[in-house]
């Protein structure tokens, strides 16, 4: 069937549902979720009992706020006290078909997750909303720059592509150069990677003398795993280097799949899959809801995963919700403007000025000559905090440094109340490269204090 003949939505019935009906559906599913969690998850039952709540108390979305918020720390503690999986899970390990781990950022103990056959079918289904929404169709050839390991990453996206009927190209064990060559040779139309790795593949292609915009058939990049997929400068750079449009998605191991995706109208944000999730935005300090257009912490309730009922889970993700009609695609799912903006704990305070890594990246990425960078925080003489940006330029663009350093330093200072950023040129190939979540901030201030 020609692409134009397919409906624009994966699920026309729900993706265009009036918001009142969507709210009623969420309330009904919430009641069922809470009842199931109370009956089958001792972890949830204890929390409900402690709060003096019974499942039948949850009748409408207004009752949602009576449910206590759940944190990752509680979940980690539950698994530590009752190894291996804790008693948050509703089913025995015998019912599971797959085991995954969180990526363990920030040096924390990873979370262990189990999923059933139905869970995995649902995980793929959520990715289908996103892939179809960004224009993936059965004729597409989808390349996954993904290592297919214990991190859940693009596993669900792989199944979604197969479910849609695409030809899937997995590349688990391939080098970056081999991936680039296969994308061209196999005429891949869609490439899935982290934003960082999408840039890295484009840089590798240039070194191989391949112009992806000219030599490849790629017209869609679907990125995930880092906030950069919605940073305009990063996204623009990816789109220019690939000659393709770039769509952002975001998910988390704790829910197993994505809960937001960018549609092909590219509204500068990501639609929430609201028939399967309730996404609240709360003030991280007070826990009070924040209105449309104001930044706050994502709190997620997920309906589809049988093994792990997630109810009002604090994600520490920073987001800004705007109404669905900010986008012209017709979907009634609200939007996170700018996708995931960062982490609530990302903000660093340097000599009284707040610095977000995302803001630094958006300025650094205005310079396409910069291949990689690192932000390094140090403490001098035990008191004075310093922020440095180590910048690595493309091997053939070293001459750009003098002019760029001046401009970059000024742009960073202007965006941060005049704060001085120390800029250092790093030799080609010296900074770390990333296939999964990039770690571009090193806070060494505690080391200096010791």
């Amino acid at each position: 069937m020609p692409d134009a003949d397919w409906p624009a939505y994966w699920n026309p019935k729900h993706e265009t549902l009036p918001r009142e009906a969507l709210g009623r559906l969420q309330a009904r599913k919430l009641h069922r979720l809470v009842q199931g969690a109370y009956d089958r998850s001792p972890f949830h039952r204890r929390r409900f009992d402690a709060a003096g709540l019974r499942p039948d108390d949850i009748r409408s979305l207004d009752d949602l706020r009576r449910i206590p918020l759940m944190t990752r720390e509680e979940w980690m503690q539950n698994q530590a006290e009752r190894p291996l999986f804790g008693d948050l899970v509703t089913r025995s390990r015998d019912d599971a078909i797959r085991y995954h781990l969180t990526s363990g950022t920030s040096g924390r103990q990873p979370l262990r997750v189990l999923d059933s056959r139905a869970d995995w079918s649902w995980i793929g289904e959520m990715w289908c909303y996103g892939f179809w929404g960004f224009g993936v169709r059965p004729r597409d050839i989808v390349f996954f720059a993904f290592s297919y390991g214990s991190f859940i990453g693009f596993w669900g996206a792989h199944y979604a592509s197969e479910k849609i009927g695409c030809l899937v190209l997995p590349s688990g064990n391939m080098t970056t150069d081999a991936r680039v060559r296969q994308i061209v040779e196999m005429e891949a139309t869609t490439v899935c990677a982290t934003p960082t790795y999408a840039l890295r593949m484009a840089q590798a292609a240039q070194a191989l003398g391949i112009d992806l915009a000219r030599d490849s058939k790629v017209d869609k990049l679907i990125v995930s795993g880092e906030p950069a997929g919605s940073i305009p400068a990063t996204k623009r750079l990816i789109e220019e280097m690939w000659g393709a449009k770039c769509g952002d998605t975001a998910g988390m191991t704790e829910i197993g799949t994505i809960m937001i995706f960018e549609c092909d109208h590219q509204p500068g944000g990501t639609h929430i899959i609201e028939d399967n999730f309730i996404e609240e935005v709360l003030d991280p300090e007070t826990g009070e809801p924040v209105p449309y257009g104001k930044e706050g912490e994502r709190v997620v309730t997920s309906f589809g995963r049988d093994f792990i009922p997630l109810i009002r889970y604090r994600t520490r993700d920073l987001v800004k919700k705007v109404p669905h009609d900010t986008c012209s695609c017709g979907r009634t799912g609200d939007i996170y403007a700018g996708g995931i903006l960062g982490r609530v704990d990302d903000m660093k305070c340097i000599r009284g000025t707040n610095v977000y890594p995302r803001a630094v990246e958006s300025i650094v990425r205005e310079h396409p000559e910069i291949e990689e960078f690192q932000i390094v925080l140090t403490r001098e003489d035990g008191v004075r905090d310093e922020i440095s940006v180590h910048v690595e330029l493309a091997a053939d663009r070293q001459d750009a440094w003098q002019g760029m350093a001046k401009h970059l330093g000024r742009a960073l200072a202007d965006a941060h109340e005049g704060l001085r950023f120390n800029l250092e040129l790093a030799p080609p190939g010296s900074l770390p490269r990333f296939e999964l979540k990039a770690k571009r901030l090193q806070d060494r201030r505690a080391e200096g204090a010791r």
Partner: protein
Amino acid sequence: MTIHDQQSRPPEHDLHGVEMTPDERELLDLFRRLRRLAERRDLAPCVSANVKQAMVMVWNACNDLALVDAPPGHD
């Protein structure tokens, strides 16, 4: 019509309270039949495993259309 027939007959309305279309009714009926097979323990491995695989896929379609409100179990 026996009581059993009445109970196993698909309801008339989806979770929104809207009357189901003939396609939706058929889909829900198919899901329920597959789930009944998935519950059985006396089927050959090749039948049981493939029925479960099919059942969870059809469940997704029912879930997407608000014909069911919970994961299927027996998977």
